[in-house]
Each structure stands twice: as C-alpha cells, then as structure tokens.
C-alpha cells in the first residue's frame, strides 16, 4: 500500500467541503507526497477525481469500506 504523509478526515462533510479541505491539505504537503482522504459524500468521488485532474495531481487509488470513500492523491 502506498504511504500517505497525511490523512484528511472529511467524513460527514457535504459538498463542497471535501474538495475545499483537500485543496487546503494538499497545499501543506510536498510535491510527490501522497494525501489520503476519507469522505462519505458520494459526490466526492467524481468531484475529487475531476479536481485532481484539473490541478495536475494524480489520483492513485479509490476504495470504499463501510460506506467510507478513501482516496489517495499524489501532489503534482
């Protein structure tokens, strides 16, 4: 499994907060590092991947465990 340098808990947050918080968190890590995000808002799935793409970040993996969506994004 890939090593995340930081885990962002966005569970229970509604759109747009998961993306807003992810953006903040990614500004605080170094290029090439991985941020792990946990969210429960179903819309986060397509929004986070579209957001990552538009910022040049790489969405490494997505998983779903017990209704929690987990994302791993590598900073550009």
């Amino acid at each position, binding site marked *: 499994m890939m090593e995340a340098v930081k885990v962002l808990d966005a569970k229970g947050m*509604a*759109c*747009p*907060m998961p*993306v*807003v918080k992810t*953006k903040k968190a990614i500004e605080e890590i170094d290029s090439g590092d991985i941020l792990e995000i946990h969210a429960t808002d*179903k*819309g986060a799935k*397509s*929004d986070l991947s*579209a*957001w990552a793409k*538009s910022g040049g970040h790489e969405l490494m993996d997505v998983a779903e465990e017990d209704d929690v969506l987990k994302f791993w994004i590598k900073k550009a």
Partner: protein
Amino acid sequence: MSQSVTTDELAKRVVNREETLILDVRNTDEFDEWKIEGGSVHIINEPYFNLLDGIGPVAEKLNKDQEIIIVCAKGGSSKMVAEMMEEEGFTNVYDLEGGMKAWSEHLEPVKIADLHGGGSLYQFVRLGKGCLSYMAVSENEAAVIDANRMTAIYERFAEEKGVTITHTIDTHLHADHISGGRQLAENTGGTYHLPPKDAGEVTFDYAPLEEDNDITVGNTTIQVQPLYSPGHTIGSTSLIIDDQYLLTGDILFVKSIGRPDLAGKADDWVGDLRETLYDRYKALSDDLIVLPAHYSFVEELDEKGSVKARIGDLYQRNPGLQVEDEREFRKMVTENLPPQPNEHENIRQTNMGKMNPENEKQREMEIGPNRCAVHG
C-alpha cells in the same frame, strides 16, 4: 447573504420561457450527461473547484448586474459560489435550493383538457428527468397514471382539488424511474393497477390492467379503457381516457418511439413493438391525442409547457412511424441504442417489490437522464 430560488420558481420560468441564465458549477462530466434545459435557458458550466482561488474564470464571461442562477448537485457549492460572486460585486445572483437533486424531483402540473361531465386531465411534467405522469379528475375522485416516486405531490394536488385518489395505474413495469403507484394507492386507500404480463415476479397484490376491464373515475363519468400494446415491455398497456386521449406509456413519444431492450429482450419484443405502432394504434381514430410517459427534448414542450400530439399527425412526422421495411425497423430499435438508464435493473427490481432501498438510495438510483426512447 445570497438569495435562493426554489425549483418551483425555476420550473415556472422554464415553462413560461422566460430568459434565464444558469451557471452550473458541477463537474463537467455530470454537466455533460444531464443539465437544466428549456427554450429560453442559457447555461454555462464551470466546476466550483476551479473557483476556489477566485471567481476569475466566470467573472470575465458575465456582467456584474446580470441575473444569474447558480446550480450544483445538492445546493452546497452553488451557495458558496453565489456568496463569492457577491463579494466580488455581482448584485443579482441566486442559488438553486437543493440543486439538481431537488430539480430532478420537481413535478410541474399542467392542465391538458376539460373532460366531459366537468372532469379534467392534468399532466405532471418532471422537467429534470423528462418523465410525464397524469391525473384524471372526475367528480370527487381521481386516477393517477404512471406516478413518480414523489407521491406527496399528487396527494397535495388531489387535496387542493378536493378529490380522493381511488386508482393508480402503471402502463408498464418502469425501468427508468421508481414508480410511486403502489405507495400512492397505499396512502390513499386506492387500487393499484399493473399489466399482469409485467407483474410475473412482483411481490405484492395488484389489480390486473387488462382490456375490457375499464376503470371508472367518479360515479358515472370518466372511462379509462386499457388497450394492450406490448413492445417496450411485454405487458405495456395504453389507456384511452374519455374517448379522446391515448396515454401511450413508453411505447410512442412525440418525436420518437419506445425501445424494446430495457428488460434484455430486444429481439423478442421488437415484433410486438412494430405490431403495436404499425397496426394496433393505426386502427384507432386519427384524432386521439397522444399523451406519452416521457419526452426527450425540451422542444417537445408546447407553449403551455405540456407534451402532446394528435396521433394522425404523428403518423405523418414521427420518424419512428415512417419505417415501412420491417428489417430496417428491427435494425433501428435493436442496434446503436443509447446507453441504458442508470441503475435500470435495480429500478425494475424495486418496482417489482424485490428490493426496498431506503429513500436516499432511491433518489440516487434515479439521478440522470431517462433514455427510454429510440430516435429514428
């Protein structure tokens, strides 16, 4: 603090063809798949996450005093963007309450006609999804046909009219939206009718919708006459109301025809579809007014906001009714079909009573366009 508009206010504008500018801030994939449409709707898309550092990408395209309605998936992001725009000096921005989720659940009632004996027929237009349902009102009773999941809307409407819903009817087992027919009948003490050939696997009791089993609304007045018309499903049954209106379900639309493949039986059902469209319906009066269960294009809405057409005219201009060659017809309705509706199999299972997803799950299952038609 920014201001909101409700789906009700927006629907009135769309139906009345008032000039409306919409900024949709969902991601572009979702926007491309499904958006608010209307004769006088102008719409631009800029995902909210491109605006987090500032509204520059939209500010350059818009005037600060222009009226702009901002729309997102559920209403959260649109509110944020509206507030950001106000801070930048925009004076006339609104966010759509509840976003596309609420829009997909809005039903706009439009009166179609007076029926004899003082009755009336209403069409409920689901602008966000293209579904059409109906209420026939006569004396102190009403029948609802192809009811959507949002049963409270029909109940409230019936209450306003001072009538009781005594019958709910589905023209077929729906695959694109969750039927409200059974729930509505349960709530009002009415009878739920379904074609028996579509009901082989259902887990509940229903009244068989069959030819010669006419349904009366009000004590003496309005007749609802079933006409077996298979092809979209094997049980699909049309309804002739008050000898003037032909409710075609998902068999015949104004600009297109039904598709035979949503239960995985395209090859089996294409013969039935052809027979219904080219023989059974043709034997009826040319003057019947077709009232379908869907529309695909916003241009199908007339100046009153309703969707209807004389069947004689459709035989002149609906491309799906002009294919003389049977092989060509078979090819048209079985090849190059549009993608199937989202979650159509789960929706069928739910409508058969085999699945009982919770409310929130049901809403999600229905998101997206309906895609019930074949466009010739």
